[in-house]
């Protein structure tokens, strides 16, 4: 068995490039991906709408868990894409899903309102960052008006 080189040795090859140049290449690559964020978001919102219909029909279905996973995905992705307003909408929606009674008759409309906010944002009609923060606060107030009930969508290995 050959002894494994250290990671430091592995990155110290003769073709080493200045770190700042590598970071600039990473920035360019990142910008290219972020240009496609809106397309990604529209697809994911479509997934949410489809699942919402399923959740309404069958409150016990895995649809709730899948819906939550997509909201998490959008939150993480939007934060990385610098869309902090969208991320805030998702945080409010996660609270709704995890900490409010799913059988409350107002639940469905509360979820629909959050999806509506996401749609407005994708259409560029949610205004500037301040407007989006205010909208997120309104969504949170609506969530807080519902009865509390903890749900845990996580699992361990």
């Amino acid at each position, binding site marked *: *068995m*050959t*002894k*494994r*080189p*250290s*990671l*430091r*040795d*592995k*990155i*110290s*090859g*003769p*073709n*080493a*490039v*200045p*770190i700042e140049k*590598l*970071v*600039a*290449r*990473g*920035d*360019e*690559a*990142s910008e*290219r*991906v*972020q240009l496609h*964020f809106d397309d*990604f978001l529209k697809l994911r919102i479509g997934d949410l709408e489809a699942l919402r219909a399923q959740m309404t029909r069958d409150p016990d279905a895995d649809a709730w*868990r899948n819906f*939550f*996973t997509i909201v*998490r*995905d959008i*939150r*993480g*992705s939007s*934060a*990385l*894409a*610098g869309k902090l307003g969208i991320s805030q909408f998702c945080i409010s929606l996660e609270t709704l899903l995890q900490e409010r009674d799913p059988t409350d008759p107002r639940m469905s409309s509360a979820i629909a309102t959050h999806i509506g906010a996401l749609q407005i944002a994708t259409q560029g009609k949610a205004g500037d960052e301040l407007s989006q923060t205010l909208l997120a606060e309104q969504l949170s107030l609506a969530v807080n008006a519902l009865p509390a009930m903890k749900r845990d*969508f*996580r*699992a*361990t*290995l």
Partner: protein
Amino acid sequence: MTITKADFSQLTILVIDDSEFVRRLVFEMLSGFGVGKIVLAESADIAFARMDAMRPDLIICDWQMHPVDGLAVLRKLRLRPDLPRIPFIMLTGHRSNDDVTTAIGEGADSYIVKPFSSATLMSHLLKVILDDNSHLDARESWAV
């Protein structure tokens, strides 16, 4: 000690994240850095299967995954007696000191809070690489 130049072409990095967008973003950033081999996994199960097949030099893993989160991946990884200690960077939306302490306590080597830039990713990569002593691990189990 710091370095001013690097050649990542000999590195293999495993990226574990259940978000397609995040996987793609991290993949593109690492590609931009010139990382030789980037392997993507969308779940813990797939990650462990790929780990057994390709033995990464370093792992970047999201914490908030479903159904198995990044902390569970890290715990399982650190309990594997057949694997040397693979440097592990936790990617997360959690900002609290308690979360950092938890991740480091479980064996994470670094901790990146989203959103992050290419410069942040590079800085954590270099920190982990320069601190790494895994090549001295007695559980040497893969050839080069």
